[in-house]
């Protein structure tokens, strides 16, 4: 029999994912990833990699009667997610830590260990998405059946090699009541924790973390219009995000947004909404689920943020980068992911590059 490992966060979704597999009679092993060093403030906000979440995961695994291990991924999380998050903000980009966590921690480090070290065959997670196999044997990545919960955006980096070994058991569930019913059947705690909009490793204001780790990004600089006119000063690049509405020392009466961040001169260039929204973006770090783009130029629906609205676009692929050509202007910050969909299917995606002036 094949053995499937389930990444358990302590939350109800991944617990239910494990329950579905256990009910199917699979040989299920629960793993919880320690993402931050243990100890610390016991009242600190919960996130999936802390001691308390680990306890919840342990209890859920016990309720299901499956083996459970707490594994330490604090080093890789610190380097590939937290450090990169800080570096990105310090260099004027807007990182997506959930994407880096999926890419480097869950579906690289953990998947590797499951398969190579522990002799597992597959890895399941509690993501709301679907992974299916086509007639030609190729794997496909689709939105979750419950569109309101869909998380496929943050999974676009998965290729054939990973998807061959990944499953998302809860992606097939129709709605929340189905999740609750399964949880109740297995005696799992169903109290869904308040869904946090915070970044898990930087509760509250993420800028505090950036300030602490990259103080050089908190040196004041000029606020300028696109024509170079200085209209004020800001407290530091690290606290700004492209697209953010600014109140920074500006009193022109117009609604101004950050248009781009020039880290060399520490300048924040601002403009009106009409000035900043554009139709073309350069994308780097391209990933395609099929391993290659459908063609060098293809029509797609591009999603530019988590749970964002699909926007009609063309993608022109030129080796390692691509040009995203949107039908209507939209705003997205460098560092964010642009994900290509064909209906409910994820084709691939890329990271928005700093745009040429």
């Amino acid at each position, binding site marked *: 029999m094949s*053995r499937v490992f389930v990444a358990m966060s302590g939350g109800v979704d991944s617990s239910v994912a494990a329950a579905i597999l256990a009910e199917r009679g699979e040989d299920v*092993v629960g793993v919880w990833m*320690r993402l931050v*060093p*243990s100890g610390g403030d016991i009242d600190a906000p919960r996130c999936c990699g802390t001691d308390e979440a*680990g306890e919840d995961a342990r209890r859920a695994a016990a309720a299901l009667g499956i*083996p459970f*291990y*707490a*594994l*330490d991924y*604090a080093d890789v999380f610190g380097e590939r997610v937290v450090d990169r998050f800080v570096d990105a903000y310090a260099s004027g980009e807007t990182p997506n830590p959930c994407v880096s966590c999926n890419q480097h921690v869950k579906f*690289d480090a953990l*998947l*590797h*260990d499951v*398969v*190579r*070290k*522990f*002799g597992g065959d597959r890895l399941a997670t509690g993501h709301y998405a679907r992974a299916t196999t086509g007639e030609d044997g190729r794997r496909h990545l689709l939105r979750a059946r419950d569109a309101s919960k869909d998380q496929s955006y943050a999974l676009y980096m998965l290729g054939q*090699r*990973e998807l061959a*070994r990944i499953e998302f058991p809860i992606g097939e569930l129709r709605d929340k009541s189905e999740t609750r019913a399964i949880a109740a059947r297995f005696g799992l705690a169903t109290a869904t924790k308040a869904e946090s909009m915070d970044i898990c490793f930087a509760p509250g204001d993420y800028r505090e973390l950036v300030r602490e780790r990259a103080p050089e990004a908190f040196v004041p600089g000029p606020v300028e219009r696109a024509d170079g006119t200085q209209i004020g000063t800001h407290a530091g690049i690290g606290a700004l995000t492209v697209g953010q509405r600014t109140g920074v020392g500006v009193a022109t009466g117009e609604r101004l947004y950050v248009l781009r961040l020039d880290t060399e001169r520490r300048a924040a260039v601002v403009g009106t909404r009409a000035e900043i929204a554009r139709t073309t973006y350069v994308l780097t770090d391209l990933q395609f689920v099929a391993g290659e783009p459908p063609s060098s130029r293809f029509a797609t629906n591009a999603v530019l943020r988590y749970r964002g609205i699909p926007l009609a676009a063309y993608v022109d692929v030129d080796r390692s980068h691509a040009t995203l050509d949107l039908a209507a202007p939209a705003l997205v910050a460098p560092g964010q992911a642009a994900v290509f969909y064909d209906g409910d299917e994820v084709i691939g995606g890329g990271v928005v590059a700093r745009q040429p002036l």
Partner: protein
Amino acid sequence: MDRVYLDHAATTPVDPEVAEAMARVLRETHGNPSSIYAEGRAARAAVDRARDEVAAAIGADPSEIVFTSGGTEADNLALRGVLKVQDGRDGLITTAIEHHAVIDTARDLELHEHVRIDVVGVDRYGVVHPEAIRDAIDDRTSLVSVMHANNEIGTIEPIAKIGAVCREEGVTFHSDAVQTVGALELDVREIPVDLLSINAHKFYGPKGVGALYVRRGTRIATMQTGGGQEKGRRTGTENVAGIVGLGAAMRIARDHRPTESPRQATLRDRVIAGVRARVPDAVLNGHPTERLPNNASFCIPGTEGESLIVALDLEGFAVSSGSACTSGETEPSQVLLALGIDRELAKGSLRVTVGRSTTAADVDRFVDALAGVVARLRDSAAVAV
């Protein structure tokens, strides 16, 4: 799947005779040992019988046995209790390989009670040298605490010699004997030790009960206040069933020792020989000969302890890495670092501890499984998914 349990240093299964003795107390002896009526007297008698059994096993007088909630409390009582009553003498000497129950208590005393701590190092086998203890003692030293044998690497310490040094210098001597009681001959009439920590679940007794041997005349304060049980040294209504279990386990261990310890030593040597044959670059931790009869401890280059434990568990074997108290984090063991073992190598530590139920066939199956797991873990380092 048939499980093979090879982690007897973490804990042992309760002996059926011990479980029966405890169950009988729970069913039949409900009195409070402090009560003067018949039910109380019956409970008191049960506790006293257990006290006799524990005392007899180590050559002590029953009045020298203080029951506690386990090894950790016994260690805390020894260190805190002695340091509290030593007027003007504020020095505590301990070693780099002590259990957390001792070393963390020492650090806490240093931080909060102004106790001066001196941590003596060990040689590459983990042996504490009596002369190093003598060198560390000065006119302010109040207590020396050196474990009888190390829980991770199995090295047996020369506590008779260390005790003799302490006696010559007029210093109180404590030894954490949690790993050795049951496995090694230990008689307080022959070994000059003043305080000795004992923990029932390491020798087929229940969890949550232990004892501190306190040599008559040793000045020690209590850590908690209350009804005055255990002659005021450990107040609180006695865990009667647990204490009865401890007494029974101690008596049984003493009866088994002459045959069981040599039998386990043979199995231990079979583990060591098997691992050397199948994983030739594995390094044996601790002393080559002066080690606990049930302990085989290794560092396996190119592996991590956590992965070893998980992979072996999935194949049906229970072993450990470092000590059970620090699971879930991959910091190398302080004990292994104290031996001068390289940090990277120390991450791949594996402890195998045999017990009463272990057979030669278990050992052979384990060695086979280990060879496979080590090969897979080493391959994984070089391969992507």
